[in-house]
């Protein structure tokens, strides 16, 4: 069992369901294949989220719910392969709620 060290940020109020902490240092355990974004997202939902009843705020249909933007090293994850992106040590993963207030 190896692990990979990552920095995970929750912005746009999303920190509220992750213990009100905006920046997390995550050590993501894995065996075999290097872990993907989908593995990190599952890990965050299962092990980092404060309260399981907030699951639907973060996850929908097995991935991040609409209205949450995901950035991989400051770049839209759509440009990086989304769920399939292979994580590298030191990556910065940012999750932010879209804000609608004006």
């Amino acid at each position, binding site marked *: 069992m190896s692990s990979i060290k990552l920095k995970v940020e929750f*912005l*746009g*109020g999303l920190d509220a369901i992750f213990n009100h902490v905006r920046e997390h240092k995550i050590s993501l355990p894995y065996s075999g294949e290097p872990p993907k974004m989908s593995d990190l997202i599952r890990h965050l939902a299962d092990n980092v989220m404060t309260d399981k009843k907030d699951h*639907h*705020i973060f996850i*929908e249909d097995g991935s991040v*719910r*609409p*209205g*949450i*933007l995901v*950035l991989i090293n*400051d*770049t*839209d994850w*759509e*440009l990086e392969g989304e769920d399939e992106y292979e994580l590298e040590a030191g990556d910065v993963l*940012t999750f*932010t*709620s*879209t*804000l*609608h*207030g*004006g």
Partner: protein
Amino acid sequence: ETQVDAFFTLEEYLRYGRQMTVRELGISGQRKLKTARVLVIGAGGLGCPALLYLAGAGVGKLGIVDNDVVDTSNLHRQVLHSTERVGQLKCESAKTYLQKLNPFVEIETYPVRLLNSNSFAIFRNYEVILDCTDTPITRYLISDTATLCGLPVVSGSGLRTEGQLSILNFNNTGPCYRCFYPRPPPPNAVTSCSDGGVLGPAIGLVGVMMALETLKLVSGAYTQDNFKPFLTVYAGYPTQSLRTFNMRGRKADCKACSLQASITEKMITSGEINYTEFCGRVNYNVL
């Protein structure tokens, strides 16, 4: 009024002199501002500061869409209204003040809710749209209408101590709101400033940023070559910060802006596209 050249009177040169000497704007930028027509949708926490600086800068024509009236609870952040104007239409209250700030600006007010039935008729009189609104329903309508009209959108938003800023449909080649958000958020996940609260300076800062992005668009600072789709995120705490993220371009299958776009003006004006249904209604029982 002494006319100095084909563009400006002496009074205008005096008024705009300090910004015309800034290399990034220049006299050529000031001329473009004078002929520019800019529509601001929402005269609230974002719209107030954006309007103040756009009117100050000398945008030729400003449109203001807002059917809401000034409420006491607005005044901590909607700083161009005032206590004596509580109960007045926000668009008229804004016009009253802005006209005093800069009588050279033509201001047109639209005391209506932006709807499928009126968005095209209003947008067609303008060159740049500022989305200073409060719900995804209106944000999709603004983006779809602007995209079909071929107009860029300066899109701002904020809540509590944070904010977001982007430019949509830049030069009819940049991504639109639907490219970023093909599916709307679940309605229960959407919080307005009235519900979730907001600090005045936090939302105000985003509005001021929107004004500068508009000056850039009008003066030609952004070009097809140098424009990269972006989302800038502001945080007021713990240290005030801005982060700019590189965003996707147009989605190949976007319903509004791609080659395969299926949305037409008629589908919007006829009500065939129902934004309220698309975004869903809040089910308060879930909370």
